[in-house]
């Protein structure tokens, strides 16, 4: 027997009983309840991720005339439309990191480490994490509010009544758009930050030619940086989109619940990105 995708996801999403229970009497009760909510949320998110991946693969040739334009629309929203903001952030990030790095490294006479510091800070850590936070705040929050409103107004039932899988029509384009946007914007942010970093160093009178700077950067980068960067950005994009969509769509909502689930989605998105980043730090250290 095949169950509907959203009904399956909703079955995993019922944490409201625990959230609305009376105040706990002891700290151990409080902690236990929090752990239960965490485990149920993880279970729900995991199930929703698998359902989304399954629909993405199973229905890749279904209704392409509707879904492909939706994917292009989402790539525009999560990627192209964000480029001006990211140029500004890249300039700021480059100036901020390099301004501090140059002054610190000059004091200890370690300017040879300038490029490798840029790679570690910008390419491995700040670039992807900052992109994830910005996308979560600007696009992820919009996703959860849009989907939550659609859910509360009964549009999801209307989609199902028309024989359209809401996961296919509403979630898959958003997830793919977020993954593509996250990957491209991280690359733009890193390139912009590295370029503005050089500009900042040049303005501070650091004796470094553009050729030497690029050579030092290339020397500090390894193939693993490229692989892990691509993997990290795609995973961040997937996780942000899934967390936002899960909270907006997976459970029946009333209109007054939308702001609450939006806050919950953004909080969980930040926590998820930081935890994933920690896993990648371990991977870098092991390599």
């Amino acid at each position, binding site marked *: 027997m095949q169950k*509907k995708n959203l009904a399956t996801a909703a079955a995993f999403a019922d944490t409201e009983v625990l959230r609305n229970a009376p105040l706990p009497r002891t700290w151990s009760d409080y902690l236990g309840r929090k752990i239960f909510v965490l485990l149920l949320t993880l279970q729900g998110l995991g199930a929703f991720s698998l359902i989304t991946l399954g629909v993405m693969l*199973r229905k890749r040739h279904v*209704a392409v005339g*509707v879904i492909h334009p939706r994917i292009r629309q989402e790539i525009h929203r999560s990627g192209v439309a964000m480029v001006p903001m990211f140029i500004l952030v890249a300039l700021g990030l480059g100036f901020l990191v390099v301004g501090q790095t140059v002054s610190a490294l000059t004091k200890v006479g370690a300017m040879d480490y300038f490029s490798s510091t840029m790679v570690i800070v910008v390419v491995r850590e700040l670039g992807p994490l900052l992109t994830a936070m910005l996308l979560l705040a600007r696009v992820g929050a919009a996703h959860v509010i849009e989907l939550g409103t*659609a859910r509360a*107004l*009964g549009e999801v*039932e209307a989609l199902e009544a028309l024989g359209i899988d809401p996961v*296919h029509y509403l979630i898959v384009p958003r997830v793919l758009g977020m993954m593509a946007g996250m990957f491209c914007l991280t690359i733009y942010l890193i390139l912009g930050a590295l370029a503005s970093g050089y500009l900042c160093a040049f303005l501070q009178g650091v004796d470094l030619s553009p050729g030497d700077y690029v050579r030092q950067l290339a020397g500090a980068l390894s193939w693993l940086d490229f692989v892990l960067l691509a993997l990290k950005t795609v995973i961040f994009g997937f996780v942000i989109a899934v967390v936002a969509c899960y909270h907006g769509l997976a459970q029946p909502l009333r209109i007054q619940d939308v702001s609450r689930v939006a806050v919950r989605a953004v909080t969980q998105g930040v926590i998820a990105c930081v935890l994933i980043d920690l896993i990648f730090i371990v991977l870098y250290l092991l390599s």
Partner: protein
Amino acid sequence: MSDRPNIPVIELQASAISALREVARPVVKNVTWTVAPGEFWVIAGQQHVGKVDLLLTVAGLLPPLAGTCRLFGRDTREFGGADPAERLQVGLVFAGGQLFHQLTLAENIALPVRYHRNLTAPEAERAIGVWLDLLELTPLAHALPADVSLDWLKRAALARALVLQPQVLLCDHPLGGLGTRHRQWWLGFLDQLGRGHEVLGGRPLTIIVTTEDLPPWKAAGRRFALLRDEQFFTYASWAELAASPDPMLHELLTDPPDIEL
């Protein structure tokens, strides 16, 4: 499906209908109901008695808590996202229209044909032209739902439900919140659909509507049902309905007093 005229369109046996918001809670118990092709059913009941939940169950969107619900002979519990063939034979019009607020009325109406027949936007525009004209929606085709009154939203929702040419039409409170002219239009149009409209090839549509106000639905050949106290009662005709001593029915059958301003 249409090749098997002897199979009931809808068949509920000892079904318990669950609430959409609380799936584990039954709102109507022990429903046994058979709808034959071409029948026009009016389901009456006051607010929050489970009328929309019953329609969602019949449409295969909400599985019954107990018993069975068969659509064209197939158990709706077997319905999944991958095989909506029976589902597509049922058009559902929600009380508020429930149009997708990011799409224009024309895009809303075109969405099912674009999705299921994989049409491009211009192809879909041609396919829905007849419906826009028939339902007098052409001037509002490019308006967003937020800019349109409920009268026209409900008509657009009706067009969206009919565009795939279903065999069954379920309408939740079709007359609710409408002005007099629109109420008359709906009663006349649903009557034409029930008798067989040329736009659907003259085939009589099986229609189920819900209401809190029975008098507008008094017409020969219609069948009635009442939802009350978690129970489902059926009546074969208006005469049988009017003869019932049920005080709730009496209330639903009474015309509201005219209010003069």
